């Protein structure tokens, strides 16, 4: 991401994006009180580019750029944040909602035909399933 300060515009589109994420996740994102419990306890936070609580904040403000963060792909849905959130919000579901929005664009990032017999033999099944799900349309 560009690291210079950009002014945030509040538009109908930002409201629509928030509504879309709330609908897919089923979570009331505006109820997040930004306490940071999710981020402080996240076992993978150091691999992320923005913290889980920042995801919540940016979605609330309708900033679609969250769809291009590493964070939502790093999230392993381990639910540490979910069981700790004092407002009982399910942050993992929000990350999943963001992934869904991207996945529904149905873009092929890899061509299955490019995988060699050797790749298929060596790779763990779960890695293949995950790759098909995340990287193919």
């Amino acid at each position, binding site marked *: 991401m560009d690291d210079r300060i950009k002014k945030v515009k509040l538009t109908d589109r930002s409201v629509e994006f928030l509504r879309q994420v709330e609908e897919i996740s089923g979570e009331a994102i505006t109820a997040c009180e930004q306490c*940071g419990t999710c981020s402080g306890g996240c076992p993978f936070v150091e691999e992320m580019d923005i913290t889980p609580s920042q995801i919540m904040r940016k979605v609330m403000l309708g900033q679609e750029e969250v769809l291009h963060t590493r964070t939502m792909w790093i999230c392993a849905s381990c639910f540490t944040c979910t069981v700790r959130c004092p407002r009982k919000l399910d942050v993992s579901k929000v990350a999943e909602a963001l992934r869904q929005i991207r996945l529904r664009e149905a873009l092929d990032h890899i061509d299955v035909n490019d995988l060699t017999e050797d790749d298929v033999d060596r790779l763990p099944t779960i890695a293949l399933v995950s790759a098909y799900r995340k990287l193919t349309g």
Partner: protein
Amino acid sequence: MKIGVYLCQCGGNISNTVDLEAIQKHIEGGDEIAVVRQESHLCSGAGQKAIIDDIGAFDLDRVVIASCSPQFHEKTFRGALSRAGLNPYMLEIANFREHCSWAHKDNPEAATVKATDLLDASIGKVRHNVPLEEKMMKMGDDVLVIGGGIAGIQTALDLADSGKNVTLVERQPTIGGNMALLTKTFPTEDCASCILSPKMAEVEGHPKINLIVDGEIESIKGHRLHFEAKIKHKPRYISPEINMDECIGCALCEEACPVSAPNHWEQGVVQRKAIYIPAPHAIPYKYIIDKDICLHDSEGCTACFDVCPQKAMVFDQEPEYTNVAVDAVVVATGYDIFDSREKPVFGYGEFKNVVNGLEMERIVDHITEKNPPRDVGKRVAFIQCVGSRDEQVGREYCSRVCCMYSTKLASLLKQARPETDIYIFYTDLRAFGKGFEEYYKRAQKMGIKFIRGKPAEFKEDPKTKMVTVLVEDTLSRQIIEAEFDLVVLAAGLTPSKSTEKIAEHLKLAVSDDGFLKEAHPKYRPVDTLVEGVFLAGTVQGPKDIPDTVAQGSAAAGRVIATLAKGEFAVDPMLAFVHDDKCTACGACFDICPVNAIAAKPDGKAEIKETLCVGCGACLGACPEEAIDLNGFTNMQLYSAVEAALAGKKPGEKRAVVFGDSNCTYRVADAAGVRKMKYANDNRVLMVPSSCRITPNLVAFAFAKGADIVLIGDCPEKGNKFEWAHDFAKKYIEQAKQILTDKGIETDRIVFDDFTASNLPKFVETMNALSEKMKKLPDIDSKTRADLNPLEK
């Protein structure tokens, strides 16, 4: 029997729509109808005079008035009856204006039919009216205050100073409560015990206060300015049990005692002996023996007894009991600090250097000593909202004092040890009280760092016992992972355990957060829905010391105002027992929600009038109809229902609506006032509560021609009688069974709640019932006759 019937034209409000001439003709010449008269304004002086004159001239013994809703002029007309020398309860009012002429303004014919039915119902009911007397009950000056914290102390002192006789019960061995545990108080930093001790001493010396420490409320019952409590004196093992007068506090015993344990008053920060004074400024200043560690019973140790100049110890003391009868009760049972073990991620109770706020109060209190019992190290963290604002532990509310108590403890620590590096981790910092914001700013200027973020978890270094805190600084969006010598959990306030039993005994309502509920959140903040029971302090919800003291004084003021009259009138519309019908079966003994039913020596039931609240819930439980309710007796309502349905013509349908006086009857009135149109095939009869409606009464309504019976009440939440819905639903199930047995659709009985302001719901419900009735088949006359409970 001589009945006078008065039809009010209400300056045309009634007579322009309802055909009063026709109704007058319908009534005149009826059984025992002595006079029927129309007046333009019955509520006026002239109108009332006409009634009063007639009562004398015709020797009337009961009066029926067709006018506006009884909520407007029932008192006026009862007054007129009184002035004429007639018992004021020999009156019934038919609601011609709100329920007929205004509601059905567009259909004068239907309005007249409905008015006729309602008048017939009132005449039917008045035939069974009996004179009732408002009994005057004497009030005394005795008040029980439960809880000897600052709230109870303030209340007790205000009451005692005004001349009331106060019994103050505290379950701990000293009064003072949680405030006595605090070091200094925010935001002024005056020492808690310095400002509290004089008040505690005043309590002990006050001639009007009977102080009972080590006391537990074993039982308490009552209602309406008359309560009886049984108080258990837990043994202190000092003679005599009630006031420990033998003990002179000389401390020789303490020096001799060979065993010690952590002082729980000091939150375990320092040690004490098995025989000890609970706190340096304890009131009463008397020793107590901790039997859990005392060696007397196990090893025959008598070290304390041997040195005691008074020989005050009684090692085999048993509990004693005191009974008190009082006119009012103030519940001031305070709070418990949140048990931080419910948040295992913070390691409280497991990690050596994680303490809670109360423990920190004691640690800070000793910090300026040469050798403090516990040091704090170099870097200290305070964690806010532990057990507050956390749905994971079921606590949604803010505890209101933690932001400021942490700020205070941090400030005191910083002043005593300027080199300490102090961090306060918060989510939202609440500094709303007088002087709080300034205090917060002062702490920031001192160098205390406020970090906006709630820690997720701690780790303890097994060797150094340092605590690592993991937290996001949500303002800089960085994850902080830092080691602290001491972590203080700003544990919140929770409803105190000891309150539960008292609330249960006194039938006090509890709010969603678990604290006791006030009668009204704005206008009656220290009253409860139980007359004569008041709340003071944190038992009602988290609050700081000034608010607690203010509420303590407010509760005292409410008690004084309540008792000032010296006597009070008991509404005569209470339950009573037809002694000849009672078979002593006992079916009613345990069902009364306020314990107003008791067995007489002959086994038959009797109603305690000081306890009964007149809800009528007991009527449905009596198989013999031996229990009855003044003002709404079985005979009154049977007669009213029968008369209300007598005018039903073949092909017509009728919904009988039993509407509670607070909500359902009032929303019908309000719909009339707003002249909202709704179906005219309903007849709304006022009852005190839905729980008054017996299965027999419902069956009777169907026997006499009802096609639908609607029972309406206020919503369960906020209902004048919180048990109303439970009873109503039970009785309705029984009524439905009666219909099922006769092969009648059970959806003819409807239970619904209304609020006096939700007019559309009432209108829609009446219209829906009308539509529904039109589709329902007629119930044949044989089946109807079989339903009549009075024919069995």
